[in-house]
């Protein structure tokens, strides 16, 4: 499982934020990958077919 992503956001220069402000913002504006699955990886043909009967994304 991936660790929480590192926020390497390119902060627009003209925002004029200090390092401290950026650090504080990153704590509250965070996007962390919690789970990442590949619905088709490793599946047998039958699994793929039957799974694709419904096209909605499922499972986290």
């Amino acid at each position, binding site marked *: *499982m*991936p660790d929480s*992503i590192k*926020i390497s*956001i*390119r*902060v*627009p220069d003209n*925002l*004029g*934020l200090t390092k401290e*402000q*950026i650090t*504080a*913002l990153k*704590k*509250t*504006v*965070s*996007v*962390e*990958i*919690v*789970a*990442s*699955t*590949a*619905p*088709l*990886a*490793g*599946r*047998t*043909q*039958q*699994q*793929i*077919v*039957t*799974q*694709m*009967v*419904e096209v*909605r*994304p*499922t*499972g*986290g």
Partner: protein
Amino acid sequence: MPESRVCLISPPTATDLEDRELAEIEAVRRIAEHAPIGILTLAAVLEERGIVPRIINLNTLYYEYLRGVETGIDFCAFVARKLESEPFDVFGFGTICSTYPLTIRIAREVKRAHPEAAIVLGGPQASAVDVQTLRAFGFLDFIVRGEAEKTFPLLLSALAGDGRLDLIPGITFRRRGEIVRNPDAPVILDLDELPMPAFHLYPEMKNCRSAPLEIGRGCPFGCAFCSTNGFFRRRFRLKSPQRVIEQMRSIRQVYGIERFSLIHDMFTVDRKRVVAFCEAALACEEQFQWGCSARTDCVDEELIALMARAGCRSVFFGVETGSGRLQRVIGKNVDLPEATRMIRCADSHHIASSASLITGFPEETVEDLRETAGFVVDCLRFDYVEPQLHLLAPLAGSSIHSQYRDRLLLDDIFSDMSYQGWRQDPADGALIASHPEVFPNFYAVPTPWLDRRHVKELRDFVLHGLARFRWLLVALAQHGGGILQVFEEWKAWRLDILKKGFASGAESSLYYSRIEFRRDFLQFVVSHCLATMGGAFPAVSALVAYEASLDAPDAPVAPEPSGCAPAGGLQSLDGAPILVKGLHVVELDCDYKEIIRRLREKESLDGVPARPVVIAIRETAGKRLETVQLGDLAAHILRLCDGRRTVAEIGDLLSRRGEDTAGVPPEKACIFGLELLRQEGLIAT
């Protein structure tokens, strides 16, 4: 060698799918487009001898058949009609167990249309049941057993009058009504001698996104369920790294393909040679991606890391059973804790691993099954691992088949090794019923300790459950006494409340494949399981809410944005950001990130903090589904991105609502947050 007109026909793999709509699904088409590597290698060998064979890909013909307007004609007759006017002297069919009945029916039609031509079968299934096949089907002329690259050209020469059939090693044939089985041909020791497969004879190659490439042959292990020992005779061989890299490079140059399935039953037997291949791959200028098969006791952490660096993106691990006792019974002898460590290691390198397990062994007890099902569930805790659970098929040539060949059972419960569709073709069914010695893989061995119908349904339940609600299944198994217990309670509940049972194995598969199962199961969890979850109730409730939200008719799936996110960032305060297409946003009452963390570590879900969180589900460019949890401010900003509000208006709203912006002016915090969401691919402007 006298020239023959030769047609080589690949074994079909997509013909189980009688439903055109399903067959057209992208993922199935990917399987169907796999280049038939065995046939193409043989074709290249013939080309070296001045014979250019015609290649018939039955998958391609099958799609043509499905899309065609001809009615009242079955696929076999369709193929025969396609070949009717072709003046071939020899038709050579590749065979695999799952479509062997169909291949034989097609061969019969071809023989009817070309009574003078020789019909030759080769490949793993025909090799394993050569005598039985010729005895059962008088229209077949020859079987080439084992590796065909040396034998088949000799056979063609003999058919053209140059050579004696009884002197060709590795063939089985009919002479004056008797079946003659010549001694085995030797295996090909130096695989570098073999030419590049004749991909140029395979027109579909230009559309393929990956290419199979044989890296070696022969697995030295002797597992009881496996049938390839006879074919490759347990003689482990590898092509040289230079040869494989040279072929990968050539394919890349001609077809632009950079992803390869390196075909070998067990690539990692010889560590030094795997290292040599990886080092060669790292040393070459091009970057290739590849997948392979391995045993968990033939890799280690260091080797997996090297393989990942060298471009390995997928590994097929045959674990076979989660029972240590059965590991010994079936001769696999994998150490299960070590298997888990290696699977975890591959996961940590983002190598997509298939962990393949089998149930339905004759010696398997309920406790063994419980351990296997538990192993499947434990695999679900790793994002890059996809467990497979197969029903045992007594493959011809396996020691299990030899042991039980007189006690095989035929019912409507087929192993997915043998049949991957939903309804067995009646014509195939009739052949199978008449010739158990030719088609044993469609039969079952006795399982005195297990109810096969129950096991079949468990398999459907687990496989479709993990595809539809992966983490909920893990949580229920962890807090509900194991996945077997959950399944048994679910089955009882369904019979009691929904009055649903199954008349056949096919009916079970169909039910579990449909959304109806998902809805019924969530109802079961809510009405039956949640009350028993104790301290894990909030966490499991959140997992149910997550799943239910995906089914809600008003599920907040974002519409198609009017424009694309600019590469350079937010363009102006007048832009109106919107959720990217397909983004699914869910609000939960429990810390989802903490739930998943605990499930990964097998920690109790008791006492997971109850607090509102917002998560979003998105599909990545690599076709993975990512679930992300948003920080409070990111969630607030995301909610305001409706495609109408401008950046300036969102900043203004944040300011007026008094959102916590960590002491940063709201409009600046807003731009910061929007830029983060944009860079993370959640919004577009």
